């Protein structure tokens, strides 16, 4: 047995728990999950059937945990796992799955397929079967602090521009602030208006907040590549940064997987509960609006829709908040046919957008979102994930569709009323 295979199998064995055992004991291979996956519906390739992507884990379960597998093993007839059982699944798991979790919503026997795929990803990552693009991004996140190689100097430059554009002071390393705001790489490099919007909204609502020079990056390449140890290392930076500044709350930015990494998986990655609360920016804005601290004025007259980021809505539970925030500022809001927890993914989640090899497949998968947008004939699409925004902008450009993408926080900032205090 090769060292890589042994490493992968060790992870799969460590990941075997009562959930996985109940899942594989229940799956009857009905194939219904295929119809929920945009990589299958848009390509017609049966290999993209979600449950098929879990095959390495299933094979281990069959060999080592099922009656027939054990019997075959005793009789020397078992079909051992080989390195190919891992390497052959690399493309399916990394290129052909955006970890959107739609399959987990439709399985009749309740298998959380997305969760099992993540376990397979973990094994592949540890065994060294991951795409170059993601390996590079993860390495930069560990070495430099950001998957896009963004340093604190770049953040300082963004802060400087934001201060110039808004006329507001962006607080940095303020000890005892109520909220520590994090940014995703995209929000620093591509969408600096997010930081400007935060400054305007928090000034308007009287929120005590700060950025941290130790913990500015929310993106978690460890989660995207599936390596829990690295994911934990990156979350720990945020935990340490928050502890240093003694903040009560940490704000997850408009980034889907960052929310999963920080809010839901982070404590499990680092092995202990946080001494602070993690709140998604949409949750916070919704709270401020409900408390009367966030007042808006004027309404968008364009026909707008909202793209639900999978990690924030379907896998994160933040579904009502974006609608609550959009309602007062849109006159002509329309939902896509499939929206909310059953929305279709943009096709670039789960690290697909950082994986150059998956470029062609990503464009094919985007056809689903394209037809969703075309069907409702909107003037613009609003979303709350910078990765979705980037992937959809690219997809629309690729398809020569002239439809702008807007960040929800940014849209709220544009409609701020006079300060209520």
């Amino acid at each position, binding site marked *: 047995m090769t060292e890589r295979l042994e490493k992968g199998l060790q992870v799969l064995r460590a990941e075997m728990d009562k959930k996985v055992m109940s899942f594989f004991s229940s799956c009857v291979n009905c194939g219904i999950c295929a119809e929920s996956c945009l990589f299958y519906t848009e390509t017609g390739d049966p290999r993209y059937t979600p449950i098929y992507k879990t095959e390495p884990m299933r094979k281990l379960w069959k060999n080592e945990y099922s009656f027939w597998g054990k019997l075959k093993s005793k009789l020397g007839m078992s079909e051992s796992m080989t390195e190919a059982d891992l390497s052959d699944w690399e493309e399916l798991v990394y290129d052909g799955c955006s970890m959107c979790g739609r399959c987990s919503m439709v399985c009749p026997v309740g298998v959380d397929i997305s969760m099992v795929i993540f376990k397979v990803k973990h094994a592949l990552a540890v065994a060294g079967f991951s795409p170059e693009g993601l390996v590079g991004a993860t390495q930069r996140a560990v070495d430099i602090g950001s998957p896009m190689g963004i340093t604190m100097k770049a953040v300082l430059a963004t802060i400087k521009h934001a201060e110039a554009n808004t006329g507001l002071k962006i607080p940095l390393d303020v000890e005892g602030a109520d909220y520590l705001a994090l940014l995703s790489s995209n929000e620093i490099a591509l969408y600096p208006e997010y930081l400007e919007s935060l400054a305007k909204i928090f000034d308007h609502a009287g929120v005590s907040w700060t950025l941290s020079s130790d913990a500015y990056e929310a993106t978690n390449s460890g989660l995207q590549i599936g390596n829990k140890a690295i994911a934990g290392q990156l979350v720990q930076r945020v935990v340490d940064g928050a502890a240093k500044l003694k903040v009560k709350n940490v704000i997850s930015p408009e980034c889907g997987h960052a929310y999963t990494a920080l809010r839901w998986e982070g404590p499990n990655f680092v092995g202990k509960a946080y001494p602070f609360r993690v709140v998604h920016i949409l949750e916070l804005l919704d709270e401020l609006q409900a408390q009367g601290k966030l007042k808006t004025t004027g309404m968008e007259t364009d026909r707008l829709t909202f793209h639900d980021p999978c990690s924030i809505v379907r896998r994160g539970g933040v579904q009502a908040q974006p609608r609550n925030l959009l309602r007062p500022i849109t006159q002509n809001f329309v939902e896509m046919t499939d929206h909310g927890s*059953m929305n279709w993914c943009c096709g670039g989640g789960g690290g697909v957008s950082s994986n150059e090899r998956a470029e062609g497949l990503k464009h094919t998968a985007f056809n689903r979102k394209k037809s969703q947008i075309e069907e409702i004939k909107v003037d613009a699409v609003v979303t709350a994930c910078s990765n979705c925004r980037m992937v959809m902008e690219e997809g629309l450009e690729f398809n020569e569709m002239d439809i702008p993408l807007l960040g929800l926080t940014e849209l709220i900032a544009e409609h701020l009323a006079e300060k209520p205090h």
Partner: protein
Amino acid sequence: MIAYLIDGPLWYFSLAVFCIGVLWHLARIIFTRGRTDLSVARGSAGGGAIRNVFSRFIPHREIASQIGLPVVAGYMFHLGLFAVLFFAAPHVIFLEENLLGFGWTPMPHWAFIVASQFAFFGLILLWLRRMLTSVGRLISTTDDHVAAILTFVVMLTGCLALLKGFPELRLLHRFTVELLLIYFPFSCLMHTFTFIPSRAFTGAWFGRRGIDA
């Protein structure tokens, strides 16, 4: 001799394998380690678990049209089989005399015919779908086919056993049932029981995140 074997020792043996096997399988799931989620829950895990056990009986509206055939065929097969298993007159009598000591009103003959037709058509449709679609062919295992064929044979011999004057057919049906009982705990047929913890685990996960799944 064969009749004695099928009605006596093999029956008790298969029943024991079934009961012990099912309990062993469920105990393994329950007593295998789980993981404590250290994140702060937004909603109730228990509520989510209970809700998901029941809500998964109805497919999401957004996908219903794409999965109409397997859902309808699945319901035809499962409901038909359930009705025949627990409400066919010979089964009610058998359960009363051999296992439970009490019985209940069986369904009329016409209902039995309808229920068994549903079960047959449902099972055949599901199996055809498995064989004729690229997804079905790719992901189906030997176990899936053995379980489907064994179930079909049990249902077929059950219908044949209704023919009066051929006691061998009753024996044949009972023998195939015994084979099914022995195969059951070690196969995908276990989903009859394990779908409950499976749905509950996933529902609990969704529930604590405040997601309506």
